[in-house]
C-alpha cells in the first residue's frame, strides 16, 4: 500500500516538473552606434595647406553609423571649420570639406548621397534604412594667401552626430 502511494506521489511530482516553462524573451530596441572606422590624418602637400586628401598625403576619416530601426535617427556630420589645437596663427584660415557615403550595407542607402541636406559645414542625412552606412569626411585648411603654416601640431575635429527623430 505504502509503495503504491509513494509511486503515485512521484508521478504527480514528475508531471508538475514537466509543466515548467522556460521562456526566452527578446527585445529589439532602437539604437544608433557611431563607430570610428578610420582615423583622419592631415597631409601637408604645400607650406600653406593641410589636407586629408590621399593625393596630398592625408587620410580621410571614415565614420560608420549602425541603426537597428529604420527612420529613428538622422546623421548630422560637420567637417572642421577651425583648429582645436595649433600653434599661434596670425592670418586667416579658409576651410573646405565635404561628407559623402563611402559604403553601405543595403543598396537602398545609396540614395543618402543624393538626399542629403548640406548647409555651412554640416551635412544631414535621415537614416531611413536599417543597417550600416560608412561616411567619409574630407577637410582642407588653406592658410593666408599661400602663407607658410608655422611648425607644430594641428588638430581639427569632425563632429559625427546621431540624433533621434
Amino acid at each position, binding site marked *: 500500500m505504502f509503495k503504491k502511494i509513494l509511486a503515485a506521489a512521484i508521478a504527480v511530482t514528475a508531471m508538475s516538473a514537466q509543466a515548467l516553462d522556460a521562456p526566452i524573451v527578446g527585445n529589439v530596441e*532602437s539604437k544608433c552606434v*557611431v*563607430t570610428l572606422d578610420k582615423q583622419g590624418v592631415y597631409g601637408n602637400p604645400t607650406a600653406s595647406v593641410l589636407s586629408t586628401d590621399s593625393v596630398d598625403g592625408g587620410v580621410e576619416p*571614415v565614420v560608420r553609423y549602425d541603426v537597428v530601426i529604420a527612420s529613428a535617427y538622422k546623421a548630422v556630420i560637420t567637417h572642421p571649420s577651425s583648429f582645436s589645437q595649433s600653434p599661434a596663427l596670425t592670418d586667416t584660415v579658409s576651410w573646405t570639406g565635404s561628407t559623402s557615403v563611402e559604403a553601405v550595407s543595403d543598396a537602398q542607402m545609396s540614395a543618402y548621397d543624393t538626399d542629403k541636406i548640406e548647409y555651412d559645414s554640416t551635412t544631414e542625412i535621415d537614416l531611413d534604412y536599417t543597417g550600416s552606412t560608412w561616411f567619409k569626411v574630407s577637410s582642407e585648411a588653406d592658410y593666408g594667401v599661400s602663407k607658410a603654416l608655422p611648425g607644430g601640431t594641428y*588638430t581639427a575635429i569632425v563632429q559625427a552626430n*546621431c540624433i533621434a527623430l
Partner: protein
Amino acid sequence: MRYIMCLLLVLSGPVAAHSWTPTYPKLKQSFVEGIYVAEMELWNSRGDISYYTFEVFDDNFEHVPWAAEERNVPVEYLERKKINIYIRRIDLPRVRYICSRSLHVKQNKSASLVSSRICSKIK
C-alpha cells in the same frame, strides 16, 4: 553585397564605437523633490576615447541646465556605464534631447579627429 560588407568589416580593424541608450528615455521623479532624472546607458568601445560629457538641449538645440554625478565621466574602453541626468521640473517642458559626446585629449600629431555625439529624444 554581403561579401562586400564582410570585407569592409574585416578591413575596418578594431571596433571603435559609441552608443547611448535608450533612444526615447522617460523622465522620472528623482529622490529630490522638483528634480527629474533620465536613466541612460553609455557604452564606449572607442579605444581613443577615455572621457565623455553630456548635453541637454531644447527643440532648437539651445542648452538646457542639467546635472549629473560628474560632468566629464571617465569611461574605460569596452565599459558600459549607467548615467543619471538630472533636470529641474521648471525645465521639463523645454527638454527635447539628451546627448553624450566624446572628449579628446591633446594630440602630438596633425590629425582630423572625430568627435561622436549621440542624442536621445524626449517624446
